């Protein structure tokens, strides 16, 4: 199967990083698609948790929001939001937090709060939501985003959530005991933090992608691993699962209420 988009490659590569015994706190957008592809392919028993309180959910279509009814209908249980953040997130029950980013730096620090100055922003973004504590309370953090010079920057405008800070042992120095970002999956490559510096390093290029392409779409000087692998192309099953999911989702989101007033 050679005919796939870079977006599809990104989602499928991300889905492969998830296992059957993971308990995954799912952000909306690309993370949600990746988590559900994993569930529908190699990890049928993965536990997906959305911050709206739905635990062990198995939606047939991707939710538009983190609180669509589908998530509750298919969940093992649905708890209140304080319980979600106290017992399940802060309680250390989540193995993987899956985040997207508007701005990302090489140490996995994320900004989804503002572009420009906080007090006088050029662009006011939605803000962190659950991310500040997802980043510190989950066992480890996976990040997925499309590469761009605007998105992958040398210096983010605001520390919405803390990755490895200035790198090295910065997390430990702040008293954070979890691993932080351990994986970055973009539309071009798979990245992992260097063991010592914690700087994200490309370990695998997606099929047909060059080093120059990765660098051309990243705002910092990219480091590549000594042995660079090629990400296996999507299998037919993976691609069909993702496309079917997207098709069901698009149909559902156009929905029966299109001609209604908002």
């Amino acid at each position, binding site marked *: 199967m050679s005919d796939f988009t870079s977006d599809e490659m990104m989602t499928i590569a991300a889905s492969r990083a998830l296992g059957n015994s993971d308990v995954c706190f799912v952000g*909306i*957008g690309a993370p949600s698609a990746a988590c559900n592809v994993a569930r529908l392919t190699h990890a049928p028993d993965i536990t997906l948790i959305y911050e*709206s*309180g*739905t635990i062990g959910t198995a939606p047939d279509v991707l*939710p*538009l*929001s*983190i*609180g*669509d*009814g589908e*998530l*509750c209908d298919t969940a093992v249980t*649905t*708890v*209140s*939001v*304080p319980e979600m*953040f*106290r017992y399940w*997130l*802060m309680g250390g029950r989540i193995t993987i937090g899956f985040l997207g980013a508007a701005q990302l730096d090489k140490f996995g620090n994320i900004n989804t*709060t503002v572009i420009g100055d*906080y007090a006088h*922003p*050029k*662009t*006011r*973004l*939605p*803000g*962190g*939501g*659950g991310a*500040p*504590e997802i*980043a*510190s*309370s989950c066992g480890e953090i996976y990040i997925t985003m499309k590469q761009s010079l605007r998105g992958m920057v040398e210096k983010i405008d605001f*520390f*919405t*959530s*803390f990755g490895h*800070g200035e790198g090295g042992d*910065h*997390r430990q120095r*702040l*008293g*954070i005991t979890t691993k932080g970002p351990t994986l970055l999956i973009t539309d071009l490559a798979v990245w992992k933090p260097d063991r010592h510096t914690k700087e994200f390093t490309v370990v695998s290029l997606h099929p047909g992608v060059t080093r120059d392409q990765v660098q051309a779409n990243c705002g910092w000087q990219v480091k590549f691993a000594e042995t660079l692998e090629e990400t296996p192309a999507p299998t037919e099953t993976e691609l069909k699962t993702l496309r079917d999911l997207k098709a069901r989702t698009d149909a559902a*989101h*156009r*929905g*029966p*209420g*299109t*001609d*209604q*007033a*908002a």
Partner: protein
Amino acid sequence: MASFMSLRDAVSQNLKDGNAAAFEGFTHLIPHAAAHEAIRQGFKDLTLIRMTPDLVYDQMVGMGMARKLVFSYIGNPGVGLLRRARDAIENGWPNRPEIEEHSHSGMANAYEAGAAGLPCAIFRGYKGAGLAQVNANIKSVTCPFTGEELAAIPSVRPDVSFIHAQKADRKGNVLIEGIIGIQKEAVLAARRAVVTVEEIVDDLDAHPNLCVLPAWTIDAIAVVPGGAHPSYTHGYYVRDNAAYLEWDRIAAERDTFLTWMKENVLDAGPEVFAGRVGKLRRTS
């Protein structure tokens, strides 16, 4: 003790200019009808509290009702930014509300502490996060047993909270089902509470462990079928995702926004909501 009344009376008797007001709902059960009634009655200088301010806060901010916003995620979930809120914060149109921004964990803990009658919430949070530098209400306490530094923020205690729920019984006990969010805490943390419901029933007939707010925790109940639209009411009608997508276009410009508000809010009433959910009702 809960009194049944029109939405108009419920809002006018419980919301005042200058109040700290929460219109809560975590994607599900957002009290759109109540917020529209507040817009029609033209309140000013409100401190608007909500974990996930979305369309109704975009609308209230765009209409100049907000002096201050307290929140943890100010977006159109799954769609993008809130264009009226952006215009207010970035350009001061129609005014520039003060901002107190938290994480979800912070807001959830602050509501929980408010419901528990505590002055502050204490939790493990904001480690390395930029909000701790820009929000003076994020402080810390030290665990007297381990020495760990924990985050402390003031509890949320709204003057009035508005929520939407599935149903009330004739005594005024209210049932909330599905994604129950932060609604119980929003009601119990507030001085006054107003609930809109899809219907009144003789008996809630609810399992003992479901989320029921006893009548004596609520001040006013108004029946507004469809009152959560374009959000949804589990068991009654589904989320109008298309309307959330459409809002992005409406709110893009000041004049399309104002035209829409006049037509759909100022010149309308709570009775229009039932019609809006007609095609979204599911029998399952």
